[in-house]
């Protein structure tokens, strides 16, 4: 309950900051993915420092077999979609408090949109 409320709030804030929708740019998104790549693989590969993101869309959070997730992530009870990922990467600790990803988030809505475009194209 609480988590979904936070999600919708973040989403609204995200849209407001975005203003008139700009065309997302997957090539730019790929550059932004560099911030994730030290821990997350985009290709079909075993999990590393972070869980593999291959096939993340539609997956239930905290369920990959080869990664030890935090209790917070296991309890989150969400399915990864463009929307849930968007709110998560905007402010990971706010979206899922006490999760273990050591990352402060991507505050800029356009950057998030580009990143998600790239992610959708690459590993949906």
């Amino acid at each position, binding site marked *: 309950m609480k988590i979904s409320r936070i999600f919708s709030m973040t989403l609204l804030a995200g849209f407001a900051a975005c203003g008139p929708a700009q065309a997302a740019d997957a090539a730019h998104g790929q550059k932004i993915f*560099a911030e994730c790549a*030290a*821990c997350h693989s985009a290709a079909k590969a075993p999990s590393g420092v972070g869980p593999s993101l291959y096939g993340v869309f539609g997956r239930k959070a905290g369920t990959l077999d080869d990664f030890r997730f*935090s209790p917070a992530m296991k309890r989150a009870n969400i399915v990864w979609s463009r929307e849930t990922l968007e709110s998560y990467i905007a402010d990971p600790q706010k979206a899922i408090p006490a999760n*273990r990803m*050591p990352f*402060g988030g991507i505050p800029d809505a356009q950057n998030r949109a580009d990143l998600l475009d790239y992610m959708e194209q690459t590993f949906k």
Partner: protein
Amino acid sequence: MAKKLKEVDVVIVGLGWTGGILSKELTDAGLKVVALERGGNRTTQDDYALPGVRDELRYVVRHDLMQNTARDTLTVRNNISQEALPMRRLGSFLPGEVVGGSGVHWSGHTWRWTDMELKVRSMYEERYGKKYIPADMTIQDWGVSYAELEPYYEKFERAAAVSGKAGNLRGQIQEGGNPFEAPRQNEYALPPLTKIHASEMFNAAAKNLGYHPFPRPSANASRPYTNQYGAQFGACEYCGYCQRFGCEANAKGSPHVAIIPAVMKSANFELRAHSWVTRVIKDKSGKRVTGVLYINVLTGEEFEQPANMVILTAFALNNVHIMLTSGIGQPYDPKTGKGVIGKNYCYQTGTSATLFFEGKHFNPFMNAGGSNDTIDDFNTNWDFDRSKFGYIGGANISGGFNTNLPIGYRPVPRGTPQWGREWKAATAKWYQAAMKIDASGAVMANRYNYLDLDPTYRNAFGQPLMRMTFDYKENEHKMGQHAAQVINDIAKSMNPTHFTPAVARTDPWTVVPYQSTHNTGGTIMGVNPKSSAVNRYLQSWDCHNLFVVGANVFAHNSSYNPTGPVGALAYWTADAIRNQYLKNPGQLVHA
């Protein structure tokens, strides 16, 4: 009886920074390399992940990544008239014991030492006269120049993801960098880290007094980064847990992230963890080594690993210890000044002030290993006239903080009780409002500071412990006084509510509080086998197929952290092996 294994081309002793670099370079050259590492193999995902890596008790108090003193330690004393006693608990320095070595839990400050260090004796003699150098100060030139090392410094900075701002690009002084640094061919691998507020305040105050502040270069990636080996670094999250911890974000330049995974992919390479090398074996002629003896610390089994070439990369202190237990080179004797193994052991000195600003919120829990600003006006600045103060060397002065841990970091003004209600109130009041200005000072080699084997105490393998005889001398005292004065002047100009001034240390060195793991010397490099243990390529003068790589080759210590030149010299040695030694095995320098 040791079990004799099949011969390999190269055995690497210790897999930290230098071991990682030499392993990579020599497997690339097509050699079959075995690395023996006394510690276990740990990885970011399994061992340095959140939340386990935030364990202050485990890593800071119980030294989980560091040398186990129940197996091996040193005995220590301040001078030759004392009886040395074993250091039963680590304190003053914290050598690593894990794949990645101390490079796992270092902060990452990465400097280029200049000719002022590499040619210390000739430059001081030329500028201040021969008499300026005290008779018992055994400083000497290293036999290598900055210009020779420049490309290797760069190679190391790129491997380790060093963030910084150039101050001198090919002779052009750059705004915002260190104007006193030696010319660099290129910018740093990454732009500087974001300044913390305390560093911004220090920067402004230093500028105001006419000094030249700049961001400290550090192997903490300010941006996501991929190095020449394809290692991917995340951007530093300013988590505040840098030194003594592995980095959960792979943002710190550490061997187990930067280089070892690339070596592991090579079919030419084999890592044997939990393998403690006790000795290098010489052949009958005494001019060649034939391999090493090691013990599997999990099973107690002993092995002989024959090799065509042995490279000691076991950290400065351990390299010297292995040379002594192997009987290679003449041990140094402070009474006669003869011998080379153990000579010119150096450390560092320092002093600091704590400034308290009522109402400030510095967020001390948020910083990178190197997110503070610093000045070199009294260090690499050769124009600074030392004769007014009568010392040699210098001090790098920095403002801010790093790794202020939530439990251990408790700054309170002078006079606060050390426990109880008043202490609690003060700690709550000042935790957010304190910052520091620190000096890290050079230590010049002295005839009576040295390393040898202890006559009494032995380690778990029955070998004599190494004995450290060390104290600060007049040069360090004078430098400390000057550095304290500079710090206090900057501090006062910042108008703090309270301030605990810097005081020059004149008390003897002790092993108890942590100071730095910047131990240098013991098998120094040089141009002459009578006064140095290894030549300019870090090759043993005695055994041509033995190379000894690490800060143990530094002929003296500077104010800077050591790993910049340690890494550069590792690449420089690798180059000499690949391009000279392999073509024509034998002494590379004839003296």
